[in-house]
């Protein structure tokens, strides 16, 4: 029953988490005010014999106050959200120099393509690994997300990454991992019978390890 | 007043839309029809905007002269419909019957022409799923004289015009009923609600066709 988000491991995760905690506090306070108010009213104004309720039609002043406060609050939340949204998903948010990967979703697996020795994605020397994403740490990466058949959704909880893969579209998803280790990828959009099993892993290497892994792979592909 | 039940004095009511229930009801129902055609026409606009390469030029596949005649027919049926209504407003039963029959015939002719249009198109190889393999149109496409594929074009063309045609057919069926009642003398100068209600529906169907004709056949 915890309200703490799981540990995060990407650059923008802390922004998202911060926004979550801000909203949690604001809504938490609103929740307490309303629920406590309800309980107090229930107890205080319960029916007692010989008493008549007060004939009150309303109060413009009170209504203006409780219209204005929520309005200002949600607009502030909106503006804060807008900034983070633009940084994470805006059309021009992908950092220059991010390493591109092809992520092709299909029932029920993730085909992940890596650049070959020519340093270009989408050329003949690319190699593809099923359900395994290997990336370097502290380096922006961008997934060129496509789908073969139906809509899937690339969900990497630890990086606070989620994006639907839409057939017929190529959608860029970028992030920058800040921790070395292995993390899980899940499919978040119902995609058919095997939806549950559509998991994969992402391995974050140090820069050197990543180069070594890449070299091994390229060598393997050559053979 | 035709029906004895109507001889009762009207109940007192708060002023509503200032029209009788059936008329208000059909207008409200037409509001939902607007939204239904919004879904179909909106989908057409969206798909066409997103995939313009699937569309042929006007008159390349669709037969504009034939549908122009159909447009003419529907406009004519609208004017006969409204003349039928004007006749019964003046209490002229004979002219009501005449114009109703004319409207039914012209409406049925519209459906007939559309059926002819569909059979010709299907025969030439234009299907809801695109070109029929080995058809005349598919050959033209192979020679580069038509778009390589017209799959979504066919899909939205048939769905939109088909549902319009379905509405026309339903209208004709209802109008046959109204005409039958007109011949039995059920409509009078005072009470001709059925004529006005079916008329509103019929003009709406005409109005939709005017929009469809332009965006499907001419643009």
């Amino acid at each position: 029953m915890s309200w703490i988000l799981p540990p995060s491991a990407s650059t923008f995760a802390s922004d998202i988490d911060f926004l979550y905690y801000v909203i949690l506090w604001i809504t938490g306070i609103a929740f307490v005010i309303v629920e406590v108010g309800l309980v107090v009213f229930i107890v205080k104004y319960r029916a007692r014999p010989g008493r008549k309720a007060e004939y009150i039609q309303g109060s413009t002043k009170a209504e203006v106050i409780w219209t204005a406060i929520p309005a200002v609050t949600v607009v502030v939340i909106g503006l804060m959200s807008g900034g983070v949204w633009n940084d994470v998903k805006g059309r021009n948010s992908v950092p220059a120099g991010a390493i591109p990967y092809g992520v092709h979703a299909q029932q029920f697996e993730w085909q992940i393509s890596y650049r070959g020795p020519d340093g270009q994605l989408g050329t003949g020397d690319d190699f593809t690994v099923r359900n395994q994403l290997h990336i370097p740490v502290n380096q922006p990466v961008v997934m060129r997300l496509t789908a073969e058949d139906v809509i899937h959704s690339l969900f990497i909880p630890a990086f606070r990454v989620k994006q639907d893969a839409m057939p017929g579209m190529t959608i860029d998803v970028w992030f920058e991992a800040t921790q070395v280790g292995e993390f899980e990828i899940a499919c978040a959009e119902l995609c058919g019978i095997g939806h549950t099993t559509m998991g994969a892993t992402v391995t974050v290497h140090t820069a050197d390890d990543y180069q070594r892994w890449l070299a091994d792979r390229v060598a393997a592909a050559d053979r | 007043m035709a029906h004895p039940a109507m001889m009762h004095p009207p109940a007192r009511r708060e002023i509503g839309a200032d029209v009788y229930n059936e008329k208000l009801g059909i207008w409200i129902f037409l509001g939902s029809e607007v939204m239904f055609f919004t879904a179909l026409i909106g989908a057409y606009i969206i798909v066409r905007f997103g995939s313009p390469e699937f569309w042929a030029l006007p008159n390349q596949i669709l037969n504009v002269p034939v549908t122009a005649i159909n447009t003419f027919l529907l406009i004519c049926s609208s004017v006969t419909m409204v003349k039928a209504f004007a006749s019964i407003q003046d209490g002229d039963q004979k002219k009501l019957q005449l114009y109703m029959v004319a409207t039914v015939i012209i409406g049925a002719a519209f459906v007939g022409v559309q059926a002819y249009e569909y059979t010709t198109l299907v025969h030439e190889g234009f299907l809801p799923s695109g070109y029929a393999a080995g058809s005349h149109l598919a050959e033209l496409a192979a020679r580069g004289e038509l778009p390589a594929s017209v799959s979504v074009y066919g899909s939205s063309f048939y769905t939109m015009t088909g549902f319009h045609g379905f509405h026309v057919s339903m209208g004709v069926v209802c109008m046959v009923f109204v005409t039958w009642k007109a011949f039995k003398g059920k409509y009078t100068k005072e009470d001709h609600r059925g004529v006005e209600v079916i008329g509103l529906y019929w003009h709406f169907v005409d109005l939709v066709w005017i929009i469809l004709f332009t965006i499907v056949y001419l643009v």
Partner: protein
Amino acid sequence: MSEGQSHAHPNYWAVWVYLLVLTVVELGVAFLPWSKQVLLLTLLAMAIWKALLVALFFMHLKWEGNRMRIFAIAPLPLTVIIVLAVLTEYVW
């Protein structure tokens, strides 16, 4: 409608001729060698004009009270909202 009753019937045949003329003009314009945008706008304008004629005269909106007119035009903004919103996918 009470107004429509007290006056003579509108000249429906004139509206009919108007609609036919517009249709013929449309057919002529559609095959002119104009740019696609100009054609689109011209044809749409004419179609909307024809639709308005039908609504105002044949459907008697011209003589209806304001309450009825509200019912008639209420759904129209909604038809525009969805189409414009989805088209932004291609514009931005």
